[in-house]
């Protein structure tokens, strides 16, 4: 089985080690991983901001880069949703680009989802034994891709205890361009999440954007809870277990 990794521009620049951990995890599950070097950004910021021509041009580039891939896996629910749910909207129905977008959508998965749904793996190892973990559901993974159980199951089956968090499924306030267009509202939303945090060893999520935002707000307010990308946590579950 061959996976083309779409690292996403955000993880490429800000979570490079988590990307490497995603590669290690997939390889340990007998997956061939390749990295098409011309990949850049899926175009979601432009799409969400209303600039569909710009988004379309980035979508075209991405469709070209991943043409022919067997599976495309992303360590991000949000960018995966951009491809799976929104790319088709950018192209006229019946057009060649639309067909290409639909083909790519059918082959695209978020990392934890791919492990559970495609690789049919429920248990990575017991490397998180004794750890209490807070899981933040990224909104696009949860509501656009319907990924709720997969990451949680992988964490639990690695021996982690999932801390109850009343705000686990609420938006953290990142929202891509939202976070810089409306920073005060965005930060207030993060505060609601932070003010309800249960005690735990660390917080994790499939989405780097949420993590940058939450950890940035935590640092600003003096929180000391470690924040870790899901790919690294899942690799730890496997490596240590």
């Amino acid at each position, binding site marked *: 089985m061959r996976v083309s990794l779409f690292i996403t521009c955000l993880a490429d620049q800000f979570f490079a080690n988590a990307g*490497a951990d995603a590669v*290690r995890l997939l390889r340990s599950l007998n997956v061939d991983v390749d990295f098409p070097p011309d990949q850049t*950004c899926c175009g979601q910021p432009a799409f*969400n901001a*209303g600039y569909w021509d710009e988004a379309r041009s980035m979508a075209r580039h991405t469709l070209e880069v991943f043409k022919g891939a067997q599976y495309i896996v992303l360590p991000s629910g949000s960018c995966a949703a951009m491809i799976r749910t929104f790319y088709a909207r950018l192209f006229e129905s019946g057009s060649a680009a639309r067909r290409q977008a639909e083909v790519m959508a059918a082959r695209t998965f978020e990392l934890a989802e791919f492990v559970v749904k495609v690789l049919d793996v429920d248990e990575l190892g017991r490397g998180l034994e004794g750890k209490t973990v807070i899981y933040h559901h990224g909104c696009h993974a949860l509501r656009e891709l319907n990924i709720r159980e997969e990451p949680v199951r992988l964490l639990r089956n690695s021996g982690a205890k999932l801390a109850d968090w009343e705000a686990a499924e609420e938006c953290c306030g990142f929202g891509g361009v*939202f976070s810089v267009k409306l920073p*005060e509202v965005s*930060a207030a939303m993060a505060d609601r999440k932070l003010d309800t945090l249960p005690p735990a060893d660390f917080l994790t999520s499939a989405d780097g954007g949420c993590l940058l935002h939450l950890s940035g707000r935590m640092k600003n307010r003096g929180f000391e809870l470690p924040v870790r990308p899901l790919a690294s946590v899942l690799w730890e579950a496997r490596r240590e277990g």
Partner: protein
Amino acid sequence: MRVNYHELARKILRETPSVRESVTRATLHFDSNRRKAYAEIDTEAWRAWAKGVKEHLLTHLDEYLEQAEERLRANGVQVHWALTAEQARGIVGDLASQYGVRSVVKAKSMLSEETGITPFLESLGIDVFETDLGEYIIQLLREPPSHIVGPAIHRHLDEIRALFHDKLGTPSDADPDSLAKAARTVLRKAFLQADMGISGGNFLVAETGTLALIENEGNIRISTSIPRVHVALVGIEKLLPRWADLAGFLQLTARAATGQRIGTYVSLIQKPGGGQEPDGPEAVHVIFVDNGRSMVLSDPEVWETLRCVRCGACLNVCPVYRQTGGHAYGWVYGGPIGAVLAPGLLGLDSTSALPFASSLCGACYDVCPVKIPIPRLLLTWRRRAASRGLTPGSEAAMMKGYAAVMRHPLLYRTAARAMRKIPGALDNRVIPVIRNWKSLRSGLEASPKSFRELWKEGID
């Protein structure tokens, strides 16, 4: 008017932080009740059914409006048509003068807020009493509603205590029951003196000409039965085709709005009093109001907005709305539905900020009883705002530059290298994106090496 959501939201967060606390508490409560009430039924089936009924209605609206008018007239109800808010005010004003009205009691109605009925009647020298407790509170405060169902949820109990102490002379430590009692004393008198009762309409059944009103306080029942004249303002999209549709909508709306199985009072009105009907007003008038709705209906990208039953469920679940309440949205409808209704009804020029007042988390769609695809509608309005030049010019230029970089892998790699090489590149607050990111968040560091560099070196 041009809504500056950012400025309004910032001001509320900075100057009245208790709003965030009050709205969050109230909406979490509403939403948790909604969740329980949804869990009791096959919500997916109900939502799909309700969506289908409204879809059918909206695609045959002309026929059902004619049918409704015919049935209402046959029942002895007088029917008026208002294309604009101004026409709606004019009709109400004419009726007030026709019936010699000096005092009006109002049942809670978002459409009357939308069309500005109260200030208009007051300008004619008519006394107007809001009779819903929440509406009464905001009338005393001279504020617009902050929420579709709970207009005063942005106010803390202490603030209401102080208000009532000041206006009604209640003790400054009065408990909620005594506050309600004080309002009731004022309103009882108003009910008995009023010449006209004004209501909205949750639904109007075309088949039978029946106006349906949902409430919990009993004030609507009184406002529509004691005064000599009852005037109902009904949005043209509020029809239901058949009598048989009503039972489902009454229940679904109550579950979505407050988590009740049905409203405490449901009033079904189809004719004036008299004859075999000892109670009720001498005259009932229904004003069908368009005020932008047929524009929305004729727009294939956004017409689904009109399915809205005004339950407020999307406000209750919205993490953006919770931070500020409804006043940040600058118009009567706040929250996710307000952000898509306002551009539809008022036009995008004055409201283009509102579709951006969302993180696109999608929670609104999940709870909407008629499955309005609010996140998709927000994206549509954003696209229109950008393509019509209603977004900041600097943003348009930035987006062009960013897309050009991302289309060219070499440029992307060069930019990424520059970010690492130039000391403090991510600290440069001259760049708006970085300035805004860092205004309330600390520490933003790129990985020492990009992933693609790690990949090149080999990952083991």
